[in-house]
């Protein structure tokens, strides 16, 4: 029996000591850091953070800056492309692998290995493959199709799709793995019942299996969505935001404003906008999931 302790604070003392790093991280870095950034986004901080409030001036300036608007537009295209294609390709690959095939492990290993590589490595490889002189375009032209043009990294209109191709290569493997786990969780009786009723396989997938996999889709969706907002190193490695400003993204805007343009206030305002966009994704989802669970008890 533990001896009588005079103070409640000292009860379970070792556990509290063990939790000190977590408490510091949660309170000081995560909560404190976020609140600090939001507060300073209302100031005119330049080279150093200073508390002279200017209201919403930083945000006003932000939304008048062409580079920020391009970043937001890119994020939308990239985000929509990532969501749609990684879910569709991930699911299709998982469905193909789920057909009792041989060498399943080999195929899965091949589809997933890009995920082990960093975005820097991914970006640099695809920068080389999409190189207009030596890469895909150069080869097709070399085969005799002289007018062939596929030059995403040097064409401002389509550069974001060049980045999307690289990102999809890197991350569809993970979605496939999540989907495969979801498919394996479906009761085989359902497949038997569908076959007995003469329902074609694609209809079974579309109307029975996919609705049953709702939790897996939501998990994948949240994972992809939080990854989209953070996209940074891929762009730095593949295009450095170019040509011009045509492949800029919000995370890069924040970094450049804070650490090379000495314009902290803009960086804080932009990162606060990133925080807001994540909250827009997280809160409705948490409300749906958590609220539902509460009602069910």
């Amino acid at each position: 029996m533990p001896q009588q302790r005079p103070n409640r604070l000292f009860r379970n003392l070792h556990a509290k000591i063990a939790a000190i790093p977590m408490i510091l991280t949660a309170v000081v870095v995560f909560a404190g850091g976020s609140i600090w950034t939001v507060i300073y986004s209302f100031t005119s901080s330049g080279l150093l953070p200073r508390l002279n409030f200017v209201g919403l001036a930083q945000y006003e300036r932000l939304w008048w800056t062409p580079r920020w608007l391009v970043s937001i537009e890119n994020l939308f295209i990239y985000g929509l492309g990532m969501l749609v294609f990684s879910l569709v390709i991930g699911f299709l690959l998982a469905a193909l692998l789920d057909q009792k095939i041989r060498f399943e492990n080999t195929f899965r290993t091949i589809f997933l290995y890009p995920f082990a590589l960093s975005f820097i490595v991914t970006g640099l490889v695809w920068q080389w493959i999409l190189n207009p002189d030596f890469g895909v375009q150069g080869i097709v032209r070399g085969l005799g199709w002289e007018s062939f043009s596929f030059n995403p990294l040097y064409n401002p209109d389509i550069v974001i799709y060049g980045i999307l191709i690289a990102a999809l290569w890197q991350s569809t493997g993970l979605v496939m793995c999540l989907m495969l786990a979801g498919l394996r969780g479906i009761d085989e009786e359902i497949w038997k019942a569908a076959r007995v009723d003469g329902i074609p396989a694609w209809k079974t997938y579309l109307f029975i299996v996919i609705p049953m996999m709702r939790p897996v889709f939501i998990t994948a969706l949240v994972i992809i969505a939080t990854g989209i907002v953070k996209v940074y190193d891929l762009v730095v490695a593949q295009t450095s935001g170019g040509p011009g400003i045509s492949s800029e993204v919000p995370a890069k805007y924040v970094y450049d404003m804070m650490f090379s343009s000495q314009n902290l206030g803009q960086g804080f305002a932009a990162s606060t906008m990133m925080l807001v966009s994540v909250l827009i994704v997280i809160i409705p989802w948490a409300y749906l999931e958590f609220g539902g669970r509460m009602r069910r008890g």
Partner: protein
Amino acid sequence: MASIVTLNTVGVADRASEDLVGPRGARPARAFSRRNIFLYGTLFVVALYYLLPLYVMVVTSLKGMPEIRVGNIFSPPLEITFEPWVKAWATACTGLNCDGLSRGFWNSVRITIPSVVLSIAIASVNGYALANWRFKGANVFFTILIIGAFIPYQVMLYPIVIILREIGLYGSLTGLVLVHSVFGMPILTLLFRNYFSSVPEELFKAARVDGAGFWGIYFKIMLPMSLPIFVVALILQVTGIWNDFLFGVVYTRPETYPMTVQLNNIVNSVQGVKEYNVNMAATLLTGLVPLIVYFASGKLFVRGIAAGAVKG
């Protein structure tokens, strides 16, 4: 609330590692049916597409520059040379420094090892405290921690610069190790908490009756029982920290840059003639560590990344 997705993820990850053994779909009828040709044909083409970049990296890094200028990127090297690898490792330039990627490699080693050890030590003890020694208020902090995993890092970048500057660690490897330990905490704590929660309570109570304390139970019972989850955490952290770019570029100085940052500086430097073969050798060298971890760890990697995917 945010913990639900991570819990789901961990659940999915567990299933991913366990259930990948037995396929379920419809059983194929004959070996050479039209369906099989379509199935294997599609998978084969897709697999080629996924392997292509790796293949291009390897062949480019083994060619000489004259061959690259005339040939195409997919053709195998006519004359194999290891010159680009040597150059990438030992003499490639970033700015005025010309000592190659080796410096970045050793920096990354010096960053990764202590970060992995420290983050796993903190998170495992913390997860153990949360699972078995609950105290008042613990769940509040844990919830903040998990929500923190979803906040874009950009929001916390500058406050951390200030904190590190205050304690005199800004720009040092120690500072970066601390940053990695902090950002590894949400997912690792969750991983360990869930694992330790599944250990039968009778075991814990019996040890308490025998007089074992907080640390005694941790070192004598929990630690030996949970080696698999430590391996998952290890894989997750080694690949995650090795691949990090953002924290490296923000919290270190040029002479302490990790490998990813140095690689990007070498390849995307504007001066000089572009040496694509050296660039690809350097890129492969940087990707080699996580690739080896991936191919060596197999299914444990699937479990680790699915659990860590929320980390982004």
